[in-house]
């Protein structure tokens, strides 16, 4: 049984390896992380129209990232859900996304977008030095030239999602109380 399972897994593994074989730029790594975050975060059932409704990733202020993500999630699913990437132009479109990546934006806009996302139940991912302080759930860091991330559990609670312990375990830093 194990043998058969391994064989089928091997095929998909080879596929995965070929895709991950692209130049590991910072953007690519972040895109991959963004996609993988989906697997470690649980949204309430009310966040979806139905069991087969897609997971929507909104990208604000980082079109290159949006393109890269779109390539990455092409044909992929998380559970039974397909993954969609949306390039957002302003914060009004935040509603409908389950995860919102906020690229390089002015701080007030970022705070605005985070507030909107919280209200919409979308997990915010930022890549600014004080991302968590701004209210973001996840914030990318660069540690020793490697992409790491930090997580605010309070922000996750405010967004009404639960972050799996596995993700918390590999986070560079987990912020539990209020900053």
């Amino acid at each position, binding site marked *: 049984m194990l043998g058969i399972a391994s064989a089928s897994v091997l095929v998909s593994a080879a596929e995965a390896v070929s895709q991950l*074989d692209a130049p590991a730029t910072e953007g690519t790594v972040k895109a991959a992380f963004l996609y993988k975050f989906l697997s470690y975060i649980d949204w309430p059932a009310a966040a979806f129209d139905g069991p087969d409704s897609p997971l929507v990733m909104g990208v604000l202020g980082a079109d290159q990232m949006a393109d890269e993500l779109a390539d990455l999630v092409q044909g992929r699913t998380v559970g039974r859900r397909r993954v969609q990437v949306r390039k957002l132009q302003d914060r009004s479109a935040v509603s409908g996304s389950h995860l919102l990546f906020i690229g390089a934006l002015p701080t007030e806009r970022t705070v605005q977008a985070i507030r909107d996302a919280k209200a919409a139940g979308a997990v915010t991912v930022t890549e600014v030095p004080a991302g968590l302080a701004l209210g973001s759930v996840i914030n990318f860091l660069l540690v020793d030239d490697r992409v790491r991330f930090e997580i605010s559990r309070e922000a996750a609670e405010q967004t009404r999602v639960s972050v799996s312990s596995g993700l918390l375990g*590999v986070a560079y830093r987990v912020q539990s109380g209020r900053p």
Partner: protein
Amino acid sequence: MTIIAYKGSLRRKVMFLVLASTFTALFVAAAALVAYEIVIYRNALRSDLITQANILSHASAPALAFDDRKAATANLALLRSRPDILAAALYTARGAVFATYVQDTGGKTFPLLPEPDGYVIAGDSAQLFHRVVDNSEVLGTLYLRARYQLRDRLVDYLAILLGVIGASLLITALLSRNLRSAVTDPILSVAAAAHDVIQNRDFSARVKRTTDDEVGVLVDAFNAMLVEVGGRATELETSNRNLQHEMAERRAAEAALRIADRRKDEFLATLAHELRNPLAPIANALVILRTPNVPQSVAEQARAMMERQMRQLVRLVDDLLDISRITTDRLVLKRQVAALADVIRNAVETARPVMDARRHELAVQLPDHVVHVDADPTRLAQVFSNLLNNAAKYTEPGGHILIDARLQGTDVIVEVRDDGIGIADEMLPSVFEMFVQVDTSLERSQSGLGVGLSLARRLVEMHGGKLEAHSAGLGHGSVFSVRLPVVVPERNEGAAVPALARVHGLPLYRILLVDDNVDFVTSMGALLGALGHQVRIVHDGPEALLLAADFHPQFVFLDIGLPGMDGYQVARRLRESPGTRDAILVAVTGWGQEKDRQRAKEAGFDQHLVKPVEFSTIQQLFKALAPRT
């Protein structure tokens, strides 16, 4: 014997049986346990490793996903709590080593490249490659290597099993040592009994039955067999003994027959001689008588010789006829109460010519008073004359012969003694056998048929007596003694003859009986006389006083009612007389009242008896009253 040798073997066999079955059972159980243990251990190890890999890969998935080597290494480091896992490694999906864990003691580390999923046992370790998959995406590979301790475990296991088997066998041996006796002891006791029977031929041995099983049946059968065999052996022995006894009897009978046959032959030869012997002198005498002018004296001599020889012939033939009669039970005794003295006198007269011819000196001694015997006088005289003839025959001329009769208790013993050639000890038992002669070398004139003594003994035995021969040996003469019972002539019915049988060893007394009843006093006198007492009988008082003066009686039995002078007067006179002053006076009377006794006592009587007087009473009296003189 071999049975002894088997004794230990049966025990050993039982022990071996028990131990072998115990060992086999334990061994099979142990083998099954070991096999089971091997399978279980392998499966357990494998599923344990797989479980461990599942947990680890699940825990390590985020670290792989987010490229967190630190977290991955920390995850693997948790294996430190599992000392049996020697090494672990995580590889990225591209096959690069991502995180590793090596136990301090572990020798080998981990492969540099991941291999396809699978579980492999190599030597003393088991290794597993496990893909880390998340969201159906291969994130990497987990490698685990664990210590494969089957051999160690097996060694431990076998040591335990060997210990258990050893202990079990030891306990079994101890138990069976005690238990086997229940099985083997009855059999061994049968074997021991069988051994005893064979060695001692003792079929009386029995084995005690102690069990109700087949061995018990065996014991019963064995005992029954012993009984049967013992019975047969005894039977055989008995019949053997009987057979031997019969054989001996038959041989003895044959020998006796041969001897009898030889005796008869000898007897016939002797008989011919004996019959022939007198005929020659008779023939000579006849010639003399026929011769004319024979002087009167010569003729007379010849006639006397003829008579003698005739008598000899007649005696011979008579003896033969008597023997024949006795042998065929045709001799009948004409018994009567006869005076012994008369019989002896007749015998002496018959034998006298022979003794005179050989100039023997004959002495005869008879009891003082008359002794009677119940006998055929002719036959008894024949006995004594045969004995006298025999004595004459074996005594040199001029020898001495004595015939002596005396009383002994209720018997009279008549002995014929001589100082002749005597009888050798070894011949004594056979002198009375027919046709036996003491000395076959004797001259013909002295020889006889050897029937005289045999005939004499037969005749004595027919009279209820005994004839025995004694001799101090050759040259010391011989004694033939005839023992006959004495009888008292029954002139009075009051005479208690049977009482005589009790008279033995009493002292003899002088006794005076005074009574006018002649019958009573005569019979009493005969009885007392037969016992050997000196008895005088008178019928009135004056006669009694007259006799007592000379006789000096020690006992006087006086009738009171005597004619003329009564018993009291006689008693007083006897007491006055010096010769009878100390005599014991016994009153014999029909009056038995106390005044009569008193009167008798006054008259000087010592004792008072009332008629009829029993003979036994008188005997008691003799015992009770001591003689005064």
